[in-house]
């Protein structure tokens, strides 16, 4: 093929890709969901437009101020937020959804140049890129207004900075795509994402904590960070403009050259990744595993004293599932985390939740136990969600659903028991040892609340199942119906618990609450038993729904 033919060919391909994107967009509008997505996209775009234009104005005004006041090095304070916004927001928004769009194109005879261009184009039309570009443009205009002679140089620097951001974002995405291609790394990233989200909760308490520290110590940290940032792209861009203001052009050129070097390095990293994609790398899980020496030893299944072998087998399976599911494990860890947050929050008298527990530390254990139970609804209200196609095995096996559900409930009860112990230790450490009568009353409350939750959970697991995909993150883990009903059950259970504890506090005797909750526990256990005995009939009646929902791709 001649070069002219090749150019025409490439142009045709790019036009076809643009057409494809357009048709995908139009065809999406055929469904209600697609139309709703369009509305949400319009809202999001409007928000980004406001952020972009407002930010651009603010950045421009600040840049004007810094240059006019002779503090051009302070531009770094503007360029760092631009950089973080440009890089972090897209990751937060889309890191956990697969976006195979561009790599799907590789089955066609696309040239590497076209592929690279398509990838960059996809990134360039991102709303975050648009907002980031607007902010950069605002800074440029601010600098230009303050010192018109500096405009061409600032334009060049800001252009390189924008290219760096665009390439850097694409490079991150290309690598994120690679990690998301494998289940294990995808799950690991999911856990890191939750930890990141949880760590945001710590910002407030930590800020308050460090506020109390001596200012010189904070100043010392700042003195260490300042020179380091100067050698990174946002700092380099600021330095390149600041040195031109002085004017000290060799230094300005030096900074711009370093910034260009960053662009080249990032561009090369992106090229490496995209080239690997282009050459058809195989990221399947099967290829990833390496052969291990054969293990000839017999591994016996678990034994659960007092229970039939199938119950023990399902119990073992449930525990293994739980241990292998990062998000589920984090759910279990959450109560401890919340206790810590409340404890830190309690340092600040303005924080109501923390302050309540600080005023009434004897209520910390019942509150934590209540929260533990609340977190357990994730597991108990969608019993079969994680089994997916395995539900067919349950139907085919000669084991009653009563036994299967009992085993699942035993697992959840085990988790609840373990977590109650851990929470008790955490409360002792953070709030002081809870009184014996409060501890017993809380356990009586659990004895009442757990069977209520298990009963409702078992019914909803059969009647309103929802498949859980452990390897994807951020999706809803229960059906809308389940969420609503479980909320009602929680309000009832928590209401009863709060009522019992309030009465006990009013009369100054927590044994009253224990008695009341134990009586209620008797009723809830009977109801649990009754519902458990009906599991087989229910499972058979709902067989089609369960299999259709859980076995779908």
């Amino acid at each position, binding site marked *: 093929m001649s070069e002219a033919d090749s150019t025409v060919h490439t142009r045709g391909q790019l036009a076809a890709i643009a057409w494809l994107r357009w048709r995908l967009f139009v065809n999406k509008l055929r469904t209600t969901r697609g139309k709703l997505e369009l509305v949400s996209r319009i809202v999001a775009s409007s928000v980004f437009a406001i952020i972009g234009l407002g930010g651009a104005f603010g950045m421009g005004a600040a840049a004007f101020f810094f240059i006019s006041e002779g503090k051009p090095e302070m531009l770094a304070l503007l360029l760092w937020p631009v950089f973080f916004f440009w890089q972090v927001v897209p990751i937060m928004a889309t890191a956990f959804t697969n976006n195979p769009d561009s790599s799907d194109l590789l089955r066609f005879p696309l040239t590497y140049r076209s592929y690279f261009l398509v990838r960059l184009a996809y990134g360039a039309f991102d709303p975050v890129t648009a907002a980031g570009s607007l902010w950069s443009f605002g800074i440029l205009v601010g600098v230009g207004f303050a010192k018109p002679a500096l405009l061409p140089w600032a334009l060049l620097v800001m252009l390189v900075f924008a290219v760096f951001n665009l390439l850097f974002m694409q490079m991150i995405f290309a690598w994120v795509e690679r990690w998301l291609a494998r289940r294990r790394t995808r799950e690991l990233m999911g856990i890191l994402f939750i930890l990141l989200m949880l760590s945001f909760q710590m910002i407030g308490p930590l800020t308050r904590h460090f506020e109390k520290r001596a200012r010189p110590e904070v100043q010392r940290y700042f003195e260490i960070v300042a020179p380091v940032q100067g050698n990174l792209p946002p700092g380099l861009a600021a330095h390149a403009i600041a040195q031109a203001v002085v004017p000290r052009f060799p230094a300005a050129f030096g900074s711009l050259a370093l910034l260009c070097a960053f662009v080249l390095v990032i561009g090369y990293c992106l090229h490496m990744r995209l080239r690997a994609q282009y050459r058809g790398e195989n990221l399947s899980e099967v290829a990833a595993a390496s052969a291990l020496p054969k293990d000839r030893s017999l591994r016996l*299944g678990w034994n659960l004293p007092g229970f039939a072998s199938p119950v023990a087998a399902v119990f073992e399976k449930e525990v293994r599932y739980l241990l292998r599911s990062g998000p589920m494990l984090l759910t279990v860890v959450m109560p401890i985390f919340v206790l810590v947050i409340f404890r830190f929050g309690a340092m600040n008298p303005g924080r109501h939740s923390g302050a309540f527990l600080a005023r009434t530390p004897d209520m910390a254990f019942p509150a934590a136990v209540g929260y533990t139970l609340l977190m357990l609804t994730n597991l108990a209200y969608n019993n079969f969600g994680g089994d997916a*196609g395995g539900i067919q095995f349950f139907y085919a096996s000669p084991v009653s659903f009563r036994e299967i559900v009992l085993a699942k409930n035993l697992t959840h009860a085990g988790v609840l028991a373990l977590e109650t112990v851990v929470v008790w230790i955490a409360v002792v450490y953070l709030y002081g040892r809870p009184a014996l009568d409060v501890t017993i009353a809380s356990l009586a409350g659990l004895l009442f609340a757990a069977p209520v939750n298990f009963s409702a959970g078992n019914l909803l697991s059969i009647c309103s199942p929802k498949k859980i995909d452990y390897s994807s993150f951020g999706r809803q883990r229960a059906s809308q119906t389940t969420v609503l009903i479980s909320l009602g059950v929680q309000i009832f259970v928590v209401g009863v618990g709060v009522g019992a504890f309030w009465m006990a506090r009013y009369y100054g005797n927590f044994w009253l609450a224990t008695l009341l909750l134990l009586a209620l526990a008797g009723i809830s256990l009977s109801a649990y038993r009754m519902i458990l005995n009906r599991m087989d009939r229910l499972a058979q009646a709902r067989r089609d729904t369960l299999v259709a929902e859980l076995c779908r791709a």
Partner: protein
Amino acid sequence: MEVKRQIGVVPEGMALFGRLTGSEFLNFAGRMYGLDRETAAQRTSELLDFMQLTDQPNKLVTDYSHGMQKKLAMAAAVIHGPKVLFLDEPFEGVDAIAAGTLKAMLQGMIARGATIFLTSHVLEIVERLCSHVAIIHQGRLVAQGSLEELRAGVEAQTPAGSGDGSPPSGEKMTLEQIFLRTVGGERRTDQELSWLG
């Protein structure tokens, strides 16, 4: 329950628990079918060996290839020694080596007196493996019997070599031909795509 104890099933979705390893899944399946812990562990080990699934003991089922999953599902279906086996498309998406292993196992079971029901769209496999065939068309059973009985039935309706796609006289009709004649399907051989060489 008693019937379930006597049968093994490999449904379309294979009914696997993706977050267990192969060994854990077979152990689990054995115990669900009433085997004691030692027997379940012993048979798990034998089945993994037979199915050549011992290379990566810590790999989760969800990370298995399609063929490996098929072999595992088959292993789980036979761990309790069923007398009747129901298999849905057992050879679909399975490589030649895995298919050989599965066939060997099925033939062994048949030799020991087990009955196997299998569904397949690949009629050559059915022709080679099955003693009796049933043809379902649009959800209805339209023919059943041994291959010879089906052949005789079709030939009785239209004599062989009559020029309607049947084999020339002296040659036996294949199951595919029997199938096409039974359901009244027709292969289009007269049309060509103009740009294909």
